[in-house]
């Protein structure tokens, strides 16, 4: 490295350390969000240059003379050599979703510091490593999927178990994300109207792109965007209209039923009519909103009102139950490390990469950007008043349903807030109430509205910005719901098809209807249970979601470690082995605590026992209001305990298979990894 370059890196290091000191050591005064942003960017630059490239060059041994699948199997469709910046955009759009926006908001109950540290450490040592390594391994195997690769490198049983794990996480993800939408939209006519409008808007776009001007994505998206903005602005009038507002003021259970029905219909309709046009809108809206948020944070440079560390670091918080370890590390899943990305990294991206020497940029770099989104979500949650934050994120069973009572409870926790502040905030954002809007999305929307209105439109536009943020989150969650239902349906057809071969035929309408109904039934049941859950749903279900998502990451990283051993690169196996071990420890501890903990706030079984005893004695325990509700809580406890136990069993089985594969690989005299292709003169070499 030249002297000049060393100097630049030294300057970045110093800037990063100084910013970090400002963030971490400042006590008493509020910290400017800009320091957090600068500190993170410095971490990303240094991590990419010194760790990401080290992994690519030393650990994986990328070979720029080796032909990639994009050239070897070039078909102009799936396999296409693609410019690295274009591919980076594609990859980022594919991995970015609701996860990194919601997790950090929930984690803010412990203060912004613990979550931020985990986001940064997690992405550098686990998340980005996973994305890049899986991308590398898939690129060397013609772009095959994670499941396929596990099957061929670790055996068919390990592959099938990982497949069941993917189905499990898919069902839980859909339920939890749909729950986030329900809590954001319940009793919110403005939000419900705007989100409902996206369905007819998608039909118009779909018909335009199918018949009027086929294939004009830009024109379709423009039409959609204009209609969407119109719906967003008209939404305020709807919410103020005496006749229209009641039509769109829906309760949680009603919304849940509507979303389940929507998921079913959307997954059997032709894709061009609903799914694809919504996908266009949600993708472009997502990228646009994230860019706007980054610009907003940089221009406004808000102060963080949330303390660095709150009293809830002891595990007694109202947003989600459990201690810092292991629960913080599963609450922030995406943004630090997300198992889902291993599916993307072994999906479309490896089929388009031009050269192995771009794997670090796309795999490691793409995940760093995702982590940056998580940091912005953390900032969004921390710029609003902590009292407002806790009033929004605590269940009605904890803080009651009136502003006066909520303010009293939250102030009692040491976050002084007046009932006026809560009602004023609700008025500012155009809602009847902001109490118990759990799930992270509404909190982030308030944060984003606060930041956006700081440089565009002031307080008058806060309601529009709030609903814009809700719309953007709901839109891509609902796109996930119909795409995810199709994925679930396919996996169910595949699984059931082993017993009834005729069920595997995916072109049969009857099969698809039954498959979709089964898929929607699975996630719909969990969603409905979450919606009627007197604890507010997120409290119960988010830890389950985080644990299963991290479970998938643990499986992916374990698989990467196995392949490093098979490649005879065990010297470097710690690079994936250590984060893999950490995730196994986190998910297994969290899973076991969820099942077995004697504390009824954390353990599902002890909670069920507490409620069973109370039912036997004829008592009604808060927050349940009747014996019927109590019984429902008990049933859900047992279901959730089963799911958590299943996740633990899956992780442990994969680990056992991995150890067996590693022992076999170590006793083999040479490289036993099953790769495709080898070094040849390649066209994309630079």
């Amino acid at each position, binding site marked *: 490295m030249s002297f000049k370059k060393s100097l630049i890196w030294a300057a970045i290091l110093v800037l990063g350390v100084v910013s970090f000191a400002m963030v971490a050591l400042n006590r008493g005064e509020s910290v400017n969000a800009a320091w957090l942003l600068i500190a993170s960017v410095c971490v990303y630059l240094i991590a990419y240059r010194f760790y990401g490239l080290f992994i690519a060059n030393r650990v994986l041994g990328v070979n720029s003379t080796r032909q990639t699948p994009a050239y070897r199997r*070039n*078909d*102009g*469709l*799936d396999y*296409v050599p*693609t*410019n690295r*910046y*274009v*591919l980076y*955009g*594609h990859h980022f*759009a*594919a*991995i970015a*979703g*609701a*996860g*990194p926006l919601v997790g950090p908001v929930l984690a803010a109950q412990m203060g912004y510091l613990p979550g931020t540290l985990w986001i940064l450490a997690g992405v550098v040592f686990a998340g980005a490593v996973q994305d890049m390594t899986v991308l590398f391994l898939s690129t060397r195997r013609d772009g095959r*999927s994670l499941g*396929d690769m596990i099957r061929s490198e670790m055996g068919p049983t390990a592959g099938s178990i990982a497949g069941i794990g*993917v189905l499990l996480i*898919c069902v839980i*993800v*859909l339920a939890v*994300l749909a729950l986030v939408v329900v809590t954001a939209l319940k009793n919110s006519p403005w939000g419900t109207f705007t989100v409902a409008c996206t369905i007819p808007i998608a039909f118009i776009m779909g018909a335009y792109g199918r018949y009027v001007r*086929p*294939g004009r*994505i*830009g024109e379709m998206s423009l039409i959609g965007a204009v209609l969407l903005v119109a719906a967003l602005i008209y939404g305020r009038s709807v919410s103020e209209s005496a006749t229209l507002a009641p039509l769109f003021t829906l309760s949680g259970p009603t919304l849940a039923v509507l979303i389940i029905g929507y998921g079913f219909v959307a997954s059997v309709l032709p*894709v*061009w009519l609903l*799914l*694809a046009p919504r*996908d*266009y809108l949600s*993708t*472009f809206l997502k*990228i646009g909103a994230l860019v706007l948020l980054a610009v907003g944070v940089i221009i406004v440079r808000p102060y963080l009102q949330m303390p660095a560390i709150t009293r809830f670091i002891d595990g007694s918080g109202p947003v989600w139950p459990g201690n810092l370890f292991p629960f913080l590390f599963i609450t922030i*899943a*995406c943004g630090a490390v*997300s198992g*889902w*990305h291993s*599916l*993307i990294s072994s*999906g*479309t991206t490896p089929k*388009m990469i031009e050269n192995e020497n771009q794997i670090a940029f796309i795999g490691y770099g793409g995940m760093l950007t995702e982590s940056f989104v998580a940091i912005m979500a953390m900032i969004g949650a921390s710029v609003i008043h902590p009292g407002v934050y806790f009033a929004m994120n605590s269940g009605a069973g904890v803080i009651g349903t009136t502003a006066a009572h909520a303010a009293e409870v939250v102030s009692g926790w040491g976050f002084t807030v007046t009932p006026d502040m809560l009602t004023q905030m609700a008025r500012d954002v155009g809602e009847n109430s902001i109490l118990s809007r759990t799930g992270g999305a509404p909190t982030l929307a308030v944060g984003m509205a606060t930041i956006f209105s700081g440089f565009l439109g002031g307080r008058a536009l806060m309601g529009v910005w709030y609903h814009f943020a809700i719309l953007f989150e709901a839109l891509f969650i609902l796109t*996930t719901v119909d*795409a*995810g239902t*199709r*994925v679930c*349906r*396919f*996996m169910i057809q595949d699984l059931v098809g082993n017993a009834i071969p005729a069920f595997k035929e*995916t072109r049969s309408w009857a099969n698809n209807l039954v498959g979709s109904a089964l898929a929607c039934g699975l996630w719909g049941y969990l969603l409905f249970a979450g919606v009627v859950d007197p604890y507010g749903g997120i409290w119960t279900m988010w830890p389950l979601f985080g644990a299963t*998502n991290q479970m998938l990451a643990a499986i992916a990283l374990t698989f990467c470690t196995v392949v490093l051993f098979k490649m005879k690169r065990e010297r470097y196996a710690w690079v994936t082995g250590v984060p893999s071990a950490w995730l196994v420890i986190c998910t297994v501890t969290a899973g076991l605590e969820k099942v077995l903990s004697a504390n009824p706030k954390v353990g599902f079984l002890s909670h069920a026992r507490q409620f069973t005893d109370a039912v036997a004695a004829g008592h009604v325990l808060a927050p349940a209001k009747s014996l019927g509700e109590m019984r429902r809580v008990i049933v859900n406890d047992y279901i959730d305990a089963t799911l958590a136990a299943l996740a633990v069993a899956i992780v442990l089985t994969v680990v056992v298979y991995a150890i067996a594969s590693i022992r076999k690989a170590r006793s083999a005299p040479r490289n036993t990894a099953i790769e495709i292709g080898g070094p040849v003169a390649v066209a994309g070499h630079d």
Partner: protein
Amino acid sequence: MTRVKAAWGWAVQTARLMVGVPDYETYVAHRRQHHPGQPIMSYVEFFRERQHARYACERGRLRGCC
């Protein structure tokens, strides 16, 4: 001016690929070069094929959620 045009071209290409539609010109060039004399899909056929393929999970295309 050519630079602005090139940057715009990249932006459009990136946006299209984000929603699963790769570059049509590249596809046509590929067919001409490697499969001369064989049929080439029109843009509309190409667009529909790609749109369908993006959501066809039965061909091993799992899409992420978060």
